[in-house]
């Protein structure tokens, strides 16, 4: 089914997406918001253009492919499915995400992967090819975030990565040892075992965008994990 986003507006567009179980191609997308919000199923939604904020919020199964950039709040509270962005994404990507995968070829903005969590067989995954802004993975409770920094040698994350982290893992591909990390975070160079744990995901990511897997793995990865000795909670006194 082909839909022309700019003729429909977000409400009519989403009505059609919700009603359909077949694969959908959305043409001439110019910032229409909420595409695929709360949609379940196992179909593929391809977007040619630039979808607006809250793409794939609460997404529960479908694969969303964006041929272009995406804006803010991609995959907010996403439960299942896959979002592939052949470009860069805005702020607050994957907020409170519980399951599924988000692959971004380019950069992502501030507050990527805040408060992601995992549950039973659900383990959310975000892989960013470029760099991300500050506040990456704050309050992280579960899941996996990988930032590859493929474009250049700059440190791939901004300030305050992992503040309040109490679960999950963040991997940064960089030659520079992460400095000034919040006290809730333990930094270590990824071990062979760590790398074995993420190699499938990196392979899937490389295949998706046609990157060379060897080249990706040819650089140091640092792992950020929660410091269990320094929990987020403060000490309380009953009163």
């Amino acid at each position: 089914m082909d839909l022309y986003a700019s003729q429909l507006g977000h409400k009519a567009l989403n009505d059609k997406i919700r009603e359909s179980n077949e694969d959908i191609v959305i043409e001439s997308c110019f910032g229409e918001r909420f595409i695929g919000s709360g949609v379940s199923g196992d179909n593929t939604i391809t977007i040619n253009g630039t979808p607006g904020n809250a793409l794939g919020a609460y997404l529960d199964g479908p694969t969303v492919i964006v041929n272009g950039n995406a804006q803010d709040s991609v995959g907010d509270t996403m439960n299942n499915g896959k979002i592939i962005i052949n470009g860069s994404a805005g702020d607050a990507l994957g907020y409170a995400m519980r399951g599924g995968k988000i692959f971004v070829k380019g950069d992502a903005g501030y507050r990527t992967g805040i408060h992601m969590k995992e549950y039973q067989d659900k383990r959310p995954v975000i892989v960013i090819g470029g760099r991300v802004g500050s506040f990456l993975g704050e309050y992280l409770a579960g899941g996996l975030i990988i930032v590859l920094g493929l474009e250049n040698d700059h440190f791939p994350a901004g300030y305050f990565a992992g503040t309040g982290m109490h679960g999950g893992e963040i991997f940064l591909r960089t030659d520079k040892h992460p400095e000034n990390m919040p006290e809730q975070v333990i930094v270590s160079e990824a071990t062979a075992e760590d790398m074995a744990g993420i190699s499938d995901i990196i392979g899937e990511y490389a295949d998706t965008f046609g990157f060379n897997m060897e080249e990706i793995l040819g650089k140091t990865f640092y792992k950020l994990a929660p410091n269990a000795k320094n929990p987020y909670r403060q000490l309380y006194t009953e009163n």
Partner: protein
Amino acid sequence: MPVNYLYPEYEIVRNYDRCIVCRACERQCANEAHEYLEDKNKMVCDDAKCVNCHRCVSLCPTRALKIVKSDHTFKENGNWTKKIINEVYKQAGSGGVLLSSMGNPEHYPVYFDKILLNASQVTNPPIDPLREPMETKVFLGAKPAKIERDENGKLKRNTPPHLTLSMPIMFSAMSYGSISYNAHESLARAAKELGILYNTGEGGLHEDFAQYGENTIVQVASGRFGVHTTYLNTGAAVEIKMGQGAKPGIGGHLPGTKIVGDVSKTRMIPEGSDSISPAPHHDIYSIEDLRQLVYSLKEATAYTKPVIVKIAAVHNISAIASGIARSGADIISIDGFRGGTGAAPTRIRDNVGIPIELALASVDKRLRDEGIRDNVSIVVGGSIRSSADIVKAVALGADCVYIGTSALLAIGCHLCRSCQTGKCNWGIATQREDLVKRLNPNIGYKRLVNLMTAWQHEIKEMMGGMGINSIESLRGNRLMLRGVGLNEKELEILGINHAGE
């Protein structure tokens, strides 16, 4: 051993002439205040462990027990009260942040108690609800600004989604985790029988309660626990929690020790994992961002459910509410500074926020002045204690109220304000199986139905006295209110005259 500066707040008084050493008190007390001395065949107690919840008093078959406030005293001081001195001792001993529960207990003015209702005399006679129909039904949601017709002159049915309630009362958000399964069952069943709604709070929805979906408000808060498409579509409305009256400006934290069994399942996080709701929603920094969340929820529910935005009553409440009324939200819920909680830092609970009466009056006026009052319905909570408070709140402009503490009192809460310990002897604010069993949902739900039915009747009687036969005609009807002992500024904010005027 360090010296303990704290003297017990209460004394457990046992009448040994009546005590038959049945040890019921010992079995009932999760705080282990009572102990049996085998060699003496005698019950003794440790006052320091008593939280004054009355469980042992109520269950003692011979009425041998009572709890009294200790008259042990410091040197009298109008400034350094016993409470303040003890709090300093507690923090000096532990280095911890003071943690309390239930609503602000301090002596701030209660405006509801300084407002009196009108009644008809001679002209415009009162109405007797026993012999004449009285309408307490309310509809919550945005009201269309104008009637639209199609080309054939037929009415376009374009009313936004609404909640229909038999009376202007809903049970406010209390999560599964903060309160027990049996407490939730009591609330859900009562809501269904009464034709009103209860609220899941930020703890997800237990699968057993999906059957009460039409009477359920599902909450979405900053931690998004248990939020997924099915959850959103099971409820009758979705509430975005921005703030809570008991702890405006801060988030929530359910420790990993309470994330066990079904609580872990409904929150959809692993057992033992801390459940942290950050203070802000990290994707909402503006009204535009809020609008985005409102509409993403509307999209996820195909525009079939009203979206509620809940905020705490704080200083600039009317400006905030004006923004929310323009965000696409259908209902604004405002929680006053007296609102309850399962746990909040004492200093926040007791010092942050404003009274709901002033917040409500000021929001209602602002929205009317701006011509956007019909964009939203207003629900208020934060200590609605009786049907009279409800009638006054409606006359100050509310469409409906949320009750939390009164509902818990109905199912056995004794306001001992120890919810944060997780050892609620009444089976409400606990997940301990042996304690949860003490709350029988068959009785709990019935007591809620009783309370609400009684309040509904009282609301009708008060309305009838004013000569009003529909709650809609009472809404915002400030002529029915008079203040007593209020200064001019207070009267101005409330929009009411002083008694005698």
